[in-house]
């Protein structure tokens, strides 16, 4: 029982990441009708926003310390971060320590900008082209983005730790009446889950309760009519693309402490998140979120030793298996609208 609870937590956690990426993908597909294969790359860029911000905070100049030597026996050059000089040692360290959450502030404008540039500069020319062309051009863009990141940051994962305050685990089981230490769950993963929930709720509220959101939802349903009403839907859709990019981006920022960012993490998530979108129902926001959590939990269960013992390899294929079954039995996905890309 305790294992099942832990795996549900794991599934919710993985599902949060899937759901956030799938949410953005669906926003883009629903509003702009574009299949964006570069969305995984946006997630990766977000994670690297955290890395870059951390590096920016740690920017330092070298001071030669004669008392120590480096590995070649020369006098050691010690890095002194500028933030130490500007804010003092303690405040500087605290800044660096909290760099991941702080970098959300950095990532949102950056990713919005990236999204807007992407939409204006590239995607907008592909609205009328077939889905295959959209897939291909965004796939090309994904390759380019990840290669650029690799050029600057190398291929190895870059450890981007959470603030010290969030290291360690919460004894979750005690709350549920289990013995102490049976269900331990890392603080940061819990933070990630709640963070994702807030973002998802925020996006839904934004679409539901603001006039802007209402126009966008109307546009999702019937683009031409809204255009006829004299509303400049294009501008709003551009912003939606930026918003989707920002959602993917901050999903990446917060994910950085969970899995150390590397340049190909976007591609790792891409295939998966498309499966999520398709399972949830192309164009359905609640579907994307639900499918994200569902697949996360299924994946977690499939990797339990008790399961893999009987079905070796099931953990490797569960996601695809689910996708095949859903597509064959319910082609519009779990919550897809009837008639939307149902063929």
């Amino acid at each position, binding site marked *: 029982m305790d294992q099942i609870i832990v795996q549900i937590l794991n599934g919710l*956690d993985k599902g949060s990441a899937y759901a956030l990426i799938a949410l953005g993908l669906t926003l883009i597909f629903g509003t702009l009708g574009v299949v964006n294969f570069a969305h995984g790359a946006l997630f990766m860029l977000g994670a690297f926003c955290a890395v870059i911000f951390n590096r920016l905070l740690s920017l330092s100049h070298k001071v030669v310390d004669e008392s120590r030597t480096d590995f070649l026996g020369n006098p050691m050059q010690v890095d002194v971060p500028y933030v130490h000089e500007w804010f003092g040692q303690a405040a500087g360290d605290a800044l660096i320590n909290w760099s991941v959450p702080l970098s959300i502030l950095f990532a949102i404008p950056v990713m919005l900008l990236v999204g807007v540039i992407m939409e204006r500069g590239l995607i907008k020319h592909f609205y009328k082209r077939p889905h295959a062309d959209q897939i291909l051009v965004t796939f090309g863009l994904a390759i380019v983005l990840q290669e650029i990141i690799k050029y600057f940051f190398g291929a190895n994962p870059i450890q981007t730790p959470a603030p010290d305050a969030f290291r360690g*685990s919460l004894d979750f089981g005690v709350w549920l009446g289990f013995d102490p230490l049976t269900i331990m769950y890392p603080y940061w993963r819990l933070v990630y889950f709640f963070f994702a929930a807030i973002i998802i709720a925020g996006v839904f509220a934004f679409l539901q309760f603001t006039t802007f959101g209402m126009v966008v939802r109307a546009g999702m349903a019937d683009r031409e009519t809204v255009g006829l009403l004299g509303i400049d839907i294009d501008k709003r859709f551009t912003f939606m693309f930026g918003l989707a990019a920002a959602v993917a981006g901050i999903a990446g920022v917060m994910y950085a402490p969970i899995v150390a960012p590397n340049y190909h993490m976007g591609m790792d998530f891409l295939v998966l998140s498309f499966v999520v979108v398709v399972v949830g129902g192309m164009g359905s926001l609640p579907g994307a979120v639900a499918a994200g959590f569902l697949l996360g939990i299924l994946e977690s269960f499939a990797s339990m030793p008790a399961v893999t013992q009987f079905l070796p390899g099931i953990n490797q294929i569960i996601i695809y298996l689910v996708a095949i079954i859903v597509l064959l039995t319910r082609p519009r996905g779990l919550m897809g609208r009837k008639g939307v890309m149902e063929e």
Partner: protein
Amino acid sequence: MSKSTFTRRGVLRTGAVAGAGLALPTYLRAQDSGFTNAPGPDSVTLGFSVPLSGPYADEGADELRALELAVEHLNGEGDGGMLQTFSSKALDGTGILGRRVEYVSGDDQTKSDVARATARSMIEKDGAIMITGGSSSGTAVAVQALCQEVGIIFMAGLTHANDTTGKDRKANGFRHFFNSYMSGAALAPILASQYGTDRRAYHLTADYNWGYTTEEAIRASTEAMGWETVNSVLTPLTQTDFSSYIAPVLNSGADVLVLNHYGGNMVNSLTNAVQFGLREASANGKQFEIVVPLYSELMARGAGPNIKGILGSQNWDWKLENELGAKYSGTNAFVQSFGTKYGFPPSQAAHTCYVQTLLYADAVTRAGSFAPCAVVEALKDFEFDGLGNGPTLYRGDDHQCFKDVVVVRGKENPENEFDLVEIVEVTPVDQVTYPPDHPQFGGAEATLGTCNNGA
């Protein structure tokens, strides 16, 4: 305008004729010399097939740095590096057998298919006489088989699975790097002394060949000293979030977690394990411990502070000579020239590629011939010293190097970004030696075959 590294085919020098002339039917450019890609009188081309893209690109880049350094030293440029400390004095900085050393490099993408293609292009197009490099056992086994087939020498880079010199051993292939069995044998006594002999281990194993052999080796040697294996779970290679695999560990009754992972897998699984509090946890009344059988400095850097206090094994470490004395001479010479040129200390992948290149050059020189069979003969049961690992034997039965194995631990308070591990102990060579027909190495059936000159 052409620099030294331009590739020329050896055959051109021997057989260039003005006008048209149809050469005799040949088998892959075998010449009068009787072996594949015999070099011309001026230069010889080596092939460096390393991962330049994909998850091991940084290791590949480090290997390539070391290989370029080796070429410099062989050609008498730079400070000569390990040539000064190498016990064999056959090499004198005038290239190999008086021929200037040139090289081609290519991207093996850590995919066995691509590695074969890259190696084939080096052999067929650039006339490479020896291939080295690589960062996985899959590519090593694949390229080694190719080299055996076409008749050139393969000096394996970073490959740790038993199979490379076990059931997939080949006469034309040589491995300097240590292997899974040695990791297990080297770690076991230290694990026993550090953590006791009554431990219960939980294995997470990457679901592919290297993972299997490593788990087998570690289990065998830890169980032999009294440990119990509670469970072992295979994890997909493409996994990035290991939480589902880590979470059940704490309540499984185990008190040691063995991560048979390498590269990105290792960074992620270790990070996850630390997140889940395993390093601070206790079980069965003991401190919970994590073991990573195969360490890599580059990956340790990726794992950051999570690596602190984690035990593992290495083929070599750049601090060996400083900390354990002159037995490991060569280390400092190499670190000095590498560090001077590139600004940071070399990784063990870099070291092993550098050493392999020197060993090949030395064997050719001692044999007086580039013919693969002559090289095989020269390397067979070759004993040497001064290449950083102490006295080393290239065993003739399986072409595996036997030398001390370094057991390391993630450093608690690193002084700089390169100083991530501390040497715990060095397990002497006789404790990690095994018979050539050991069951983990293909048993009695495993055979090198005969060396192939390609002609």
